[in-house]
């Protein structure tokens, strides 16, 4: 099924009267596991956006008083909130893992003729993640 013909190839028709152009199907990302996981990685942004909105709603509830916050807490206990949060947590974790694994690609440090191995940079990021989470967790629980 051809539904998009790139016009750029027209200039190369000189000498080649009948180039065959294959078009990427709209569900190209379902053809390979690597493509699927790429789109999944990009979809983690929905979880990030979702939680930003939840935070806005939570802060708003706190601002409006204890009854509003209690209502918000009740919603948090509902099955739909639980399901959304569970899904969002899975996606957020996938985002964090893929983000820290890719960090060394953007930040290359050369010492002499060698480059600092990727796992060190990733490792430092993971370490910071654990430390910051523990710090925040401890702070909120006390």
């Amino acid at each position, binding site marked *: 099924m051809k539904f998009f013909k*790139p016009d*750029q190839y027209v200039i190369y028709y000189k000498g080649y009267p009948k180039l065959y152009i294959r078009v*990427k199907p709209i569900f190209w990302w379902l053809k390979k596991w690597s493509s699927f996981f790429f789109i999944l990685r990009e979809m983690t942004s929905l979880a990030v956006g979702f939680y930003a909105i939840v935070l806005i709603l939570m802060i708003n509830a706190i601002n409006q008083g204890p009854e509003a916050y209690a209502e918000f807490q009740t919603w948090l206990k509902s099955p739909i909130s639980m399901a959304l949060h569970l899904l969002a947590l899975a996606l957020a974790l996938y985002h964090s893992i893929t983000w820290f694994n890719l960090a060394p690609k*953007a930040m290359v440090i*050369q010492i002499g003729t060698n480059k600092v191995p990727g796992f060190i940079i990733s490792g430092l990021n993971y370490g910071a993640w654990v430390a910051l989470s523990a710090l925040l967790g401890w702070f909120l629980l006390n």
Partner: protein
Amino acid sequence: MSSKITLEVFRYNPENDEEPSFQSYEVPCNKDWVILDALNYIKDDLDGTLSYRWSCRMGVCGSCGMMINNEPILTCAAFLKDYLPGPIRIEPLDHFPVVKDLIIEMSDFVEKLKRVKPWIIREEEPSLSEGGYNQTPAQLAAYKQYSMCINCMLCYSACPVYGLEPEFLGPAAIALAQRYNYDNRDQGKKERENVISQDDGIWQCTFVGECSAVCPKNVDPAGAIQRYKVESTTNWWKSVLMPWGNK
């Protein structure tokens, strides 16, 4: 060890065909044969009309790239026995127009390579009497990885962004630009910046990473692109926040 394996090969003859078709060939499955050997066997003994590109047969020329079971691979590097029991589907490289059979039209790729000015740019050339440029091993190491590209176009076939937006500059071209940007002999970074830091340059890349995954020479074009994104962003913010710097 079975003695035969089937290859399903993409056929397209622009003189006769409106649509491509697949033709099956049975080739002997010798234990040290690569897919290129199988294709040569087909051309020599079974069907002389099959057309495809190849040259060095040892992974340095970049001519024999094709889609093997939907993965862009150099056919001189893919062993038949790894694909047993078969059949093996052989198609021309994705994201390029097909000229005939397994041959693709690559002018777009060549034009993009030229666009990034892949040569040493200097404000002033030193005279011959001053001798050549000397480089320490560390200076060489800064760009060596990006110089290993054999222009095989597997990365363009793997890149979904290039497949969906053909105006994208592409992994190999940007890695080539970086090869010169990180070369201490070169002074042309600013000139190249106008070419690569465009909406159809690095900013179209969404860091899928497939380009680096399929590269037979470990050039890591995805890394080259991400490093340039960081650098270009830093430069952009510097020029916005501190516009008194020289342009």
